[in-house]
């Protein structure tokens, strides 16, 4: 009897360059989401520096959502990652189910008095590398847009 083919991780009609993924705070889930988005970026032949920027920003955004947004929630509560990749830009939206926060309340980690503090550095890196970074009013949904650099 023929063996069943392994179940695809995502539905067969899912478009490889865009999608909405639910991710829980477990390494295999995080890796799978990462591979899906960065895989699409690589297929669109973004330069090495862009891939570095996008990998880091996605990682930092996911960690912020889990560590801060979901601080009071069980680890099996998923965040939602929505992404669209085309030749001109990459859109990544990460929505957590936490209460939200005011990004203006995060102390500037580059100030001398804060340089040894633990927090704020992830968001600083995201803002440095992404073309557009926006939180919704509640502060539980981060939208990041990366424009392909001009050749």
């Amino acid at each position, binding site marked *: 009897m023929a063996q069943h083919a392994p179940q695809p991780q995502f539905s067969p009609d899912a478009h490889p360059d865009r999608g909405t993924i639910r991710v829980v705070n477990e390494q295999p889930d995080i890796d799978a989401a990462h591979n899906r988005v960065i895989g699409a970026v690589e297929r669109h032949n973004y330069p090495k520096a862009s891939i570095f920027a996008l990998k*880091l920003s996605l990682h930092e955004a996911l960690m912020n959502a889990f560590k801060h947004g979901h601080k009071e929630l069980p680890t099996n509560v998923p965040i939602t990652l929505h992404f669209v990749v085309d030749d001109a830009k990459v859109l990544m939206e990460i929505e957590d189910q936490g209460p939200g926060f005011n990004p203006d309340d995060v102390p500037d980690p580059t100030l001398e008095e804060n340089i040894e503090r633990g927090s704020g550095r992830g968001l*600083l*890196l995201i803002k440095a590398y992404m073309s557009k970074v926006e939180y919704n009013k509640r502060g539980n949904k981060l939208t990041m847009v990366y424009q392909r650099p001009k050749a």
Partner: protein
Amino acid sequence: MPPTESRIRVKRVDSVTQVEFLDRNILDEANIQVIGQEIEQLIQSEPNPRLLISFSGVEHLSSAALGTLIQVNNHVRNRNGQLRLANIDPQIYEVFVITRLNKLFSIHGTADEALKSFTK
């Protein structure tokens, strides 16, 4: 299950403890915790530790890894030791520049340059 095997390679050059990473990506929080604990043991194992951390082969580094490096720096300082960083890929060096941590750490192009910079 969290990884428990070593994530670093350690060698001794003169009186300097040289650390290299086994991972190309230092992103996974569990791995970063193990790395922090392993380096902490090295710091605590001698007075006035002279520690050189080489980033040879490292391609990605998260803000959590930077946080661990800041702790390492503090603990080395508390024991009147010296910390040097070397062999940082230009893209990762940019991460240090954006976060201004290039001002906090003593960063050198190569391990040899870093070794020469330790004061007796």
